[in-house]
């Protein structure tokens, strides 16, 4: 006997506004780096070191940083305004926990939609989560920067590890923010 039942899952969001990456500058020279930090562990120290190195090696004009009110929420509206009014390129993260990694990826996608080239820095342990979010939002294949063990995902790093991670992700961030 044939039985008809109903699919319990939510459909993926509509693709009426297909995802597009923001146009990239040729280099980071003269750009203002926006940092949308989620405050996970000591990742803010890593972001500061990253901005310092990009300023030194790539001639950034400057940087502007916001630390969100919780690890897995959007920036406050005034933080969003601060970033989008000043930054010309941006990094988000740190994607080291379940909900914060996907939210940071969403921050990067929102920045792209606002015309600001962005990249999310994600720990290897959370790659399946951010890839799933990208698929869900029609941004399958959106590139991000991955770091990994022996650094732990949750950002409880010492100062040397923060500096080392900034150096490790430097090339990847540069590549993904430029044409």
């Amino acid at each position, binding site marked *: *006997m*044939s*039985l*008809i*039942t*109903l*699919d*319990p*899952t*939510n459909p993926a*969001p509509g693709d009426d506004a297909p995802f597009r990456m923001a146009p990239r500058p040729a280099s980071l020279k003269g750009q203002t780096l926006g940092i949308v930090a989620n405050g996970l562990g000591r990742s803010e120290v890593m972001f500061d070191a990253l901005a310092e190195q990009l300023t030194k090696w790539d001639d950034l004009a400057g940087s502007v940083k916001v630390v*969100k*009110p*919780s*690890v*897995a*929420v*959007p920036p406050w509206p005034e933080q969003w305004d601060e970033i989008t009014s000043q930054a010309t390129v941006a990094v988000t993260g740190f994607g080291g*926990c*379940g*909900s*914060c*990694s*996907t*939210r940071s990826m*969403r921050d990067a996608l929102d920045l792209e939609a606002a015309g600001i080239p962005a990249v999310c820095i994600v720990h290897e342990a*959370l790659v*399946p*989560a951010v890839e*799933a*979010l990208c698929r*869900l*939002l029609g941004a399958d294949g959106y590139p991000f920067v991955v770091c990994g063990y022996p650094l732990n*995902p*949750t950002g409880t790093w010492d100062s040397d590890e923060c500096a080392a991670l900034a150096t490790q992700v430097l090339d990847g961030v540069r590549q993904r923010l430029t044409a």
Partner: protein
Amino acid sequence: MTFTSPEVRSDGWLEAVETYIENGWTDGLPVIPPTPEAVQAMLDAAGVDGSEVLGDIPTRSLSVTAEKVAINSVMAGCLPEYAPVVIAAVRALLQPLGNAHSTTATLAGAAHAVVVNGPIRNVLGIECGQACLGPGFRANATIGRAVRLVIRNVFRTVPGVLDRASFSWPLRYSFCFGENEEHSDWTPMHVHEGYAPDDDVVTVMSVMRYLAATEFEPEAETVLATIADTARIQGLMIDSFVGDARGMMVILGPEHQRRLIDEGWTKESARQSLWERMTQPTAGKHDVKVELASPENVLICCAGGPGIAQSQLIMPHLAAPTHERILVP
């Protein structure tokens, strides 16, 4: 009877059950196949249209409709008359301070407690007394399970994908109970939140840690001290997003409640005392301040059965307890 959800065709009941398991649409246990007729009965009982949006998860660009909640409620084994409770619980979870994205994707594997107040507890048979936190009660088991299936199927929180829980835990199968309002003349939890005693209200609370506070001594002060000390084992840190709305819950067992009542304590004086004890400055690695803005952020829910002198504590994830009135047409 019109639905937007795609139809699934199976060769009978058993094949449908297996299909839902194979498609990853269950918690690993068999479900009731959601026929259109059963889903419509659920919507009718809640008095809502299937297209009604109960809330959103902006990070995932997802909207949650009553139709999807009704489908998952049938699958969980709910009777139609439970639908208003499930609908209200999902609305509560989707309030902004419920922080649904964070609490359902976290490494920590937060669960969600669904707590029911008001006369509907007795109408539906929602257990509030002996063994109310465990299996054996259809309303508790299926309402809690329906919320979990909604989290899995509608919020798209699949383990190992968007659900990043390192361990997860059994509370994620189902966690629903009621407050034992009839056990004493203490003020019911929902009345403290501004509702009338005859209102039916659901409270949804994220569960980051679930702790048993056991104290056999007869003095009320000792009981309160033990409950506070248990909460302070790991404490609770400030979260700017949730801010002053953050709360924890004490599921106060009847043996502890009796000790307090015998010495003239009320729910209000008990939570004042607990708040003062919990918010003392941090004194060590396992004696950590519980950051709560006021005594009102200590929710006391009287439940459980006689016997062991114990209470249970729910420490939240990055969310506030959220409340929603249960509307029965």
